[in-house]
């Protein structure tokens, strides 16, 4: 399986999500998958043809339902990306139901996401309440962090 893994804030030491995502990418590679990391930054939103880079992949995996997810979801919803679209939620991106920005990212992303993977069991209900249909729980692999 060829996976394009979109990760925001790569290299930011304080950000646990990017560290967890890189650990997951490494482990998926060890298990025989072809994984390429696509670091996402806010500057990247002006590259209007950036979705073309997913052409050679089977699946687009996105870490966190944040700006990066909303951004590529627009391409998916416009039909410019037709790959399997999977997001991993670590909690903070879907829990805060009163945060307008989080609500916006979720509203944009939800129709595009084929599968939402959540790393806490309570997030299944939270995700379903937000309207996600295909939600699967896996435990966190934070034990692999230093």
């Amino acid at each position, binding site marked *: 399986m060829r996976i394009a893994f979109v990760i925001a804030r790569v290299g930011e030491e304080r950000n646990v999500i990017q560290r967890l995502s890189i650990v997951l990418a490494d482990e998926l590679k060890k298990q025989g998958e072809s994984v390429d990391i696509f670091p996402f930054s806010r500057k990247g939103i002006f590259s209007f043809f950036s979705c073309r880079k997913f052409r050679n992949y089977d699946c687009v995996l996105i870490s966190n339902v944040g700006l990066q997810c909303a951004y590529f979801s627009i391409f998916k919803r416009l039909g410019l990306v037709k790959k399997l679209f999977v997001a*991993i939620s670590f909690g903070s991106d879907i829990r805060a139901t009163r945060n307008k920005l989080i609500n916006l990212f979720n509203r944009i992303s939800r129709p595009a996401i084929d599968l939402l993977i959540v790393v806490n069991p309570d997030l299944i209900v939270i995700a379903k309440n937000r309207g996600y249909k295909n939600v699967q729980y896996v435990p966190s692999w*934070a034990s692999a962090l230093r």
Partner: protein
Amino acid sequence: MNILFAGRLVDFKDPVTFVKAARLLSQNMIEPAHRFVIAGDGELLEECRKLAFGYKNISILGWVKPEKVDDLMIHADIFCQLSPYENLWASTLISAMKHKKAIICTNVGYTDTYLTHKYHAFLIPPNNHLALAEAIGFLANDNEMRRMLGENAYAFVQENLSVEKIANQIRQLLLQSLQARQGSGVDRRV
């Protein structure tokens, strides 16, 4: 005894209860029996600092590098995870389990679905510094219980939370979804 709280200093993690319990266990003592350490930053940092003011045995470090957290974890005797909402699967909780620490954890959300009281962790009610102080006192006086909790928590991580196992679950989910799409004939050219 070294008692550790590590995590974001926000309502979701409830560091204030930790500081209140630390104060309670340190009051009227010339030589406090325990050292309390908080590692992390967030909107409650200043409130925690104010509450801990004047207590030499309560250290509030602010944000520290992951290597430092690891070091604090190694030297801790008891780790506290006190969310009033959900503790699973906080990275700090998993780290404490991996380090075989005795954990005091609030019994909220799915916590007791996975962690058994007095087997994997010592479970207490949320937002209750009296219960936390009592639990710290209990564990501080019971070496065998601390050792047993640490061993069982570590075994849980080894059995259920390995990156190999979880990455494989994610792989299977991706493969199944891909197969389902191929079966339904969705155009994947772009």
